[in-house]
């Protein structure tokens, strides 16, 4: 049984995601969720997320309310990544790109205002690769010839897709549990991947490559409010179901 079962159960899983999750443009700076809520959601996500060989070769760094400078540093890595990706696209002759958004800052598209949730939030979770130690069962399997690729730092990039899928499952579970606590969340996958880049902005304790990040707090404004205000809400649709799912 879940030791932390919330007595004020409201919505089911589908409706929680459908009605409550929105990308946050801005969090309330003076409303800080309790550490207890964050701990509870993290515990639930850890407890219920499966992993190949029970290895879970990733680590969650939690940047709390007092880590303002560090979160601004992480935001700078997001902006830098965005700029680099666009500039490289212009240089890549296989692509149609001829300009980058950062070429003309007067448009207001650079830096992207929808990355600000990374800098200004009560809590930020960054998830990174981690060298895993096999449990007793897999130690014996390794002696029999089983390949435990999660145990080697030099294989991080080789197995990054399967680790990232697991991180995605963890992030989905954590996201749901945070929403269930009445909190708002936003994801981000635009950032510098190399730990050395993190060291350049003073984040020396980060030793391994980041995989994704999630911000959390109480939303003051959602991205969709801006998009609606611009009259472009109907333009921003996900692909149709038939384009994503194919029955064979």
């Amino acid at each position, binding site marked *: 049984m879940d030791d932390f079962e919330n007595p004020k159960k409201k919505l089911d899983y589908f409706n929680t995601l459908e009605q409550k999750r929105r990308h946050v443009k801005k969090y309330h700076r003076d409303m800080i969720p309790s550490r207890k809520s964050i701990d509870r959601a993290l515990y639930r996500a850890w407890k219920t997320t499966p992993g190949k060989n029970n290895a879970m070769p990733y680590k969650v760094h939690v940047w709390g309310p007092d880590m303002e400078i560090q979160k601004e540093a992480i935001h700078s890595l997001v902006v830098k990544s965005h700029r680099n990706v666009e500039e490289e696209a212009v240089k890549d002759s296989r692509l149609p*790109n001829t300009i980058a958004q950062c070429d003309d800052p007067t448009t207001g598209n650079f830096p992207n205002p929808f990355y600000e949730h990374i800098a200004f939030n009560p809590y930020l979770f960054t998830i990174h690769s981690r060298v895993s*130690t096999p449990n007793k069962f897999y130690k014996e399997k390794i002696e029999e010839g089983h390949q435990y*690729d999660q145990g080697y730092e030099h294989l991080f990039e080789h197995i990054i*897709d399967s680790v990232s899928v697991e991180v995605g499952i963890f992030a989905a579970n954590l996201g749901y549990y945070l929403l269930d606590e009445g909190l708002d969340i936003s994801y981000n996958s635009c950032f510098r991947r190399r730990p050395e880049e993190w060291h350049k902005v003073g984040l020396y304790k980060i030793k391994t490559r980041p995989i994704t990040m999630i911000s959390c707090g109480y939303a003051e404004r959602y991205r969709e409010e801006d998009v609606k205000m611009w009259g472009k809400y109907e333009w921003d649709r996900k692909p149709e179901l038939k384009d994503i*799912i194919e029955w064979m």
Partner: protein
Amino acid sequence: MSTFDLLEKRHHVKRYLLESPPKEIIEKALWKAWKTTPSKNNGMPYKVFVFGPEKQKEKELVHDMVHKSHIRSENDAVKAGFATRTEGGAPNPFYAHVKEPGAYLICIHAEPREPNKFYESAVEEGMFYDQAHPEYIDRFIDTTAVEVGMFIANLGLYLLEENLDISYNSCFMRDQQKWLDVGLDHAKYRPVITMSVGYAEKYRYENLKEWGRTHEDLKPEYEDMIEWR
């Protein structure tokens, strides 16, 4: 039952019953997962292929590839010097869920996709929409794989709510050409994950119990995975 309790009940399936779940239940869960899974730039740069119980030949082909991938991975480890032996090529019985006759097999591959109208205009202003370009699939595979992970987490939960069982598998050849070579024509782009769905007849943990080894196969401690800065 709470979501936490439902997920706590999930176990890796060794064998499924021959009775297949109705297609409508799978369709409903797929729709809910599509509806509630977010994506960068609303791109969803992946495609979900569903092999029903009647697609036994295809499921066998995927299973063969899983087995070969496992052997190759062990051989590579010996060649690279960080293992001294392999398991000798014996099929891992816990991969069998991939080809079980009563179950569905879901294979998810990366797939480039054109931007929606909102992002079309952003591209005109200089935004790089990486999800549209096949040559960038490998470079951004971590981002796509995180999103696929979120999709299967949601899909898995909706299937569990329908009293179905699910199992994941990430051991297979990444080169889509290997899939095409054995006749799996859907594999135009890099595979990301496979998942099986059905009614379980036997779970992996039941084997571990019989062997008296459930206490040996534990996940890392919470403190090893979560660090407050």
